[in-house]
């Protein structure tokens, strides 16, 4: 590995003093990707800024409005082991508990997964359908954007020089809503999605009608595909609507052929995963919490 300097600031202000001074800087959260990328020469830096000694970046909690505010460098395992998170946001647990094996989950973070901007990232479809937003911070202040606006292309995110991803904010979920994230991989665990689907559904009071529906697909385009499902809002939450959502996903998918899967296979997967994730989301929406 090429030599670099390392700092572990305690405050955001300290972070900003290291930016925009002509040095090539990289941020490190869990390090499970960036350390490997540095070692393999896929990325270079003069200064590595470790964000894990900043409390704001490594802590999480529900605020007074019920929004889950997650420090971008919080380890996945810490998040999905939390009893409150499991009860209130099972759709988030779906994706957080799928990324890597336990050794990775002990370190890797949602922020790192998002910043890598992989089209196959497990966290992005789930966070998008949950309606999550990102707080981006710099010496000049903070801005907040929906997760879907963060991805510009494979490996490219919306952070400007001098900015860092501070928090992921997942809003309180409607009591009659449910979210499910599913992916397809050739192994049982520890792999990168061939295709994936996140579905969020909000049902009417009696659980019969679809009041809201959000579907997002991973690994079937350069960035996450948000599927237009407006035609299904107001319809009965039944097998016909679920099949129709699957068809919309297959249509919206624009996959490529690569080592992980083919175009035809990924289109089929987009359909099947949407159907199954929607079934799961409806089931969760009908659960009494």
């Amino acid at each position, binding site marked *: *590995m*090429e*030599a*670099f*300097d*390392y700092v*572990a600031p305690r405050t955001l202000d300290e972070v900003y003093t290291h930016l925009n001074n002509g040095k090539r800087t990289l941020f*490190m959260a*869990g*390090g*499970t990707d960036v*350390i*490997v990328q*540095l*070692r*393999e020469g896929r990325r270079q830096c003069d200064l*590595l800024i*470790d964000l*894990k000694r900043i409390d704001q970046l490594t802590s999480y909690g529900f605020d007074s409005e019920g929004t889950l505010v997650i420090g971008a460098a919080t*380890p996945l*395992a810490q998040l999905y082991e939390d009893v409150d998170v499991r009860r209130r946001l099972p759709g988030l647990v779906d994706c957080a508990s799928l990324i*890597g*094996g*336990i*050794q*990775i989950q*002990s*370190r890797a973070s949602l922020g790192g997964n998002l910043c890598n901007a992989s089209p196959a990232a497990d966290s992005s479809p789930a966070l998008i359908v949950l309606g999550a937003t990102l707080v981006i911070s710099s010496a000049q202040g903070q801005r907040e954007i929906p997760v879907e606006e963060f991805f510009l292309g494979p490996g490219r995110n919306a952070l400007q020089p001098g900015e860092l991803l501070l928090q992921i904010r997942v809003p309180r979920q409607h009591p009659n809503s449910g979210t499910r994230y599913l992916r397809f991989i050739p*192994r*049982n*665990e*520890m792999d990168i999605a061939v295709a994936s689907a996140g579905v969020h559904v909000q049902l009417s009071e009696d659980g019969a009608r679809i009041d809201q529906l959000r579907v997002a697909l991973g690994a079937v385009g350069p960035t996450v595909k948000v599927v237009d499902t407006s035609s299904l809002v107001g319809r009965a939450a039944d097998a016909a609507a679920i099949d129709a959502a699957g068809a919309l996903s297959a249509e919206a998918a624009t996959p490529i052929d690569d080592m992980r899967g083919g175009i035809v296979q990924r289109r089929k997967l987009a359909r099947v995963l949407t159907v199954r994730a929607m079934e799961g989301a409806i089931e969760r929406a009908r659960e009494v919490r």
Partner: protein
Amino acid sequence: METRLNGVERDFLCEPRQSLLEVLRDELGLTGTKEGCNNGNCGACSVVLDGRIVNSCCVLAVEIEGRDLETIEGVARGDQLHPLQSAFLDEAALQCGICTPGFIMASKALLEREPDADEARIRHWLAGNLCRCTGYDKIVRAVRRAETAIEEMNV
């Protein structure tokens, strides 16, 4: 760097670019932790950092200042093997042995959290540890055997 390593305060010098794995093996002479893939896939370098199981190839040594670290060298008590170590021998759960320290560390982390983990849970938890020799069945049997042994010890 100053750290608590297997219950003992240790200090060492390192460069920022050195992984924890490199420092353990090359600077501190603790070669029980193995290098497999060196990219976070195989789990051979698993160690416990502040109570969590991690791949030491994906940790920089400079990160562990003031942290608590446990390696395979801290598992046995003198000549007395940990029940997991005995179980791996009894079940012949190793052949070449390169993956074994990682499997022991990961299994130990599991059993300390979930002493009653069933087979499916064990297999799922150990997904981040690769073995090219055994086909995993013997490893899973060893972990289950160790569970029973630990339970009997605690009765």
